[in-house]
């Protein structure tokens, strides 16, 4: 096959994703430097206003006043995504290690069990937690039947429920890349350490952890990125009480109709996420994508 032929075969993929994904992203970038018009679209001139309004409010006499409204939303989203990533890591490491230690014939089945929820609709997976956590939900009804509480606990519509929903949704993203690196490591290294009377802790910290690190980094990116832009969990489980970046972006394109500001927010998270991906590209590629 000639290089020309190979490029020709790839052309439909490149054109399709280029025209309908890369170009729209560039359009979004351009829109973020434009001005919102009265009909909800955009108009000239080019300004940095959308980005400035992330941090400042324009007063009547055009002076800029610092406002923390949006900064808080951004920091909240980043903080929640970071904690969710950490919680996923805490759950995924032992699970991935457990699967690695199983006999070879049992591993594909276990792996399939872990990856299956990934393919189920995210809306449905988030909604399940509404059934469990709401006032007449499974937990409250059980606790009341047992006589432990007399009125329902406020389990739904708070940050805790959002954490739970996000960890639940993204856990497979963390387990799969970590498993992929652990599975490929040479057991001889661990056995050598044991033969040299290393303690379990020393083996975990000085042999297994360094070997698992590329998987941990890949998993961290795969969880952090979608968690940062999440829309469903804050909406259904947080009750929309507190805004997150994903919901704020969605609002700018529906109810608020401020496209430049929405585009600026979308650009912001894209730059952060693509930046991190490119920075760690080699490691992520070596680990491969889930499934």
């Amino acid at each position, binding site marked *: 096959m000639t290089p020309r032929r*190979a490029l020709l075969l790839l052309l439909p*993929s490149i054109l399709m994703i280029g025209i309908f994904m890369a170009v*729209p992203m560039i359009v979004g970038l351009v829109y973020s430097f434009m001005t919102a018009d009265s009909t909800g679209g955009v108009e000239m001139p080019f300004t940095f206003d959308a980005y400035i309004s992330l941090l400042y409010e324009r007063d009547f006499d055009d002076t800029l006043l610092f406002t923390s409204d949006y900064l808080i939303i951004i920091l909240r989203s980043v903080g929640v995504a970071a904690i969710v990533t950490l919680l996923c890591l805490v759950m995924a490491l*032992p*699970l991935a290690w457990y699967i690695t230690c199983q006999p070879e014939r049992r591993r594909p089945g276990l792996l399939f069990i872990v990856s299956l929820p990934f393919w189920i609709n995210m*809306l449905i*997976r988030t909604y399940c937690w509404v059934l469990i956590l709401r006032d007449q939900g499974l937990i409250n009804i059980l606790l009341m039947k047992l006589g432990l509480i007399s009125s329902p606990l406020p389990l739904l519509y708070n940050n805790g429920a959002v954490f739970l929903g996000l960890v639940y949704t993204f856990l497979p993203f963390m387990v799969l890349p970590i498993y992929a690196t652990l599975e490929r490591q040479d057991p001889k290294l661990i056995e050598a350490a*044991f033969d040299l009377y290393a303690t379990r802790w020393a083996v975990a910290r000085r042999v297994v952890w360094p070997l698992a690190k590329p998987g941990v980094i890949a998993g961290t990116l795969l969880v952090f990125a979608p968690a940062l832009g999440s829309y469903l969990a804050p909406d259904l489980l947080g009750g929309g009480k507190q805004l997150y970046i994903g919901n704020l972006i969605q609002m700018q394109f529906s109810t608020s109709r401020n496209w430049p500001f929405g*585009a600026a927010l979308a650009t912001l998270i*894209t730059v952060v996420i693509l930046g991190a991906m490119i920075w760690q590209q080699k490691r992520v590629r070596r680990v491969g994508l889930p499934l």
Partner: protein
Amino acid sequence: MRARPFDWRKTPGIAPFAAFAIIFLYAPLVVLVIYAFNANNVVTIWTSFSLKWFGVAIQDQAIRDATFNSIVVAVASTILATIIATLGALGLERGPNFRGRGTAIGLVGLPLVVPEIVTAVTTLVFFSGIGLNLGLFNLIIAHTVFCIPFAMLPIQARLKEMPAGVEEAARDLYADERRLFMKVTLPLLAPGIMSGAMLAFVTSLDDFIISLMLAGAGTTTLPVYIYSMLRVGVTPEINAISTLLLLLSLIFVVAALLLTRKRS
């Protein structure tokens, strides 16, 4: 000789932890499915086993319309994405290194890394900017784009492990390129293509946020419709239709896996 300190494959206390994590992944889904069979009008108060809410859901005209839209979009974008991904996978796996190959790989993987909300709003802006307003066809284009990498993964995997010797042998026997592809490569690649198509189908069926932003009057997909029902309140009908959607996804993913398994 002294015995080793311990067997590293046995970490004390890890099995219950792994079991907990797996129960955590499945228990909420089981709760949903059980509630879907609950006869009571109040979702979470159990009275007796019943199929009545499935009947109610199936007879709801709005649910039928949304299901029809979802299936049309999923089938159309699966066919498009699978054809495009098959060609792309052949170019990547069988073609030589060419200039810009790395960039092409990055571009094809773009839908996997860009947050869905960003894809959703930029696609919305782009479609309204160029004035593309073709109803379901808008959705089909958007779905095809993000289904391509998912369809490509199993096809690439299959190409990687297919014995290259068979293709070489056919070439040695003077098979021309067309016959080589039709008689050798394609039949061997078929399970990978089927598996890719099924993953593309599930990915399209599962999409919510992109469809939410792009769907207009008359182009509501099933997940978007379920979401609008949820905004009004939790009903047993939602449990029933969600359970059906869940089963549909499960059937396709398990089928995709079985096809991938067959190769070894």
